């Protein structure tokens, strides 16, 4: 399954949830869904903005781990 390491990148860049949401033009609620791993999918446009604001690569935020294959697979 795909794991989002957003909290790790946020800690590295020393940016809080509110500030990141403001800079990405997203609501805190939606960003929280991403951060807590509750999201089902992420748009390329969102990933694009995330990488731009956090100055990182998609691989820094997204990670594949062996786990429950049913998560996200419908």
């Amino acid at each position, binding site marked *: 399954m795909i794991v989002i390491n957003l909290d790790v990148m946020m800690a590295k860049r020393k940016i809080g949830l509110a500030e990141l949401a403001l800079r990405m033009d*997203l609501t805190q609620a*939606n*960003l929280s*869904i*991403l951060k807590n791993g*509750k*999201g*089902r*999918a*992420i*748009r390329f446009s*969102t990933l694009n903005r995330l990488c731009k604001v956090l100055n990182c690569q998609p691989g820094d935020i997204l990670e594949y781990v062996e786990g429950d294959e049913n998560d996200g697979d*419908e």
Partner: protein
Amino acid sequence: MKEPIVSNVLRVTLYIVFVAGIIGTITLPFMLETYTAVLYDTYYLLPGYRQFILTFLMVVAVLGLWVVWELICIMRTVSLDPFVSKNVGSLRRIGFLVILISVLFFLKCLYYVTFLTMACGFLFIVCGLFAFTLCSLFRQAVAFKEENDLTI
């Protein structure tokens, strides 16, 4: 989101039907006497028919009121978010209630058969199947909506 006029008219109609249904159910014994006095019904001469038809109509009326109440609950969500699990449950209950009404109509045919009773029985079966079809549709719509809501 502003509701279309049709939804508002439908909601008001449902409330009117519900209130009229409650009044009709409460005054059913009186209405039945008036009906048989005005329109000659040969079945009414049979012993026990009066009690049987009154009980039958009372039960069907209560089940029908329950269906209308479930529809009112669904209509309340239309302006906010209709694709919720609660509405899937409501539609499933409507399906079971309508099928139950159909069964009651066929049971009535075992004792006092009329063409209209049989026709109503078959009609309610179709209505029940329609409700179950809508239930499946809504269940899928809820899944799609959840997928969309959790796509950031």
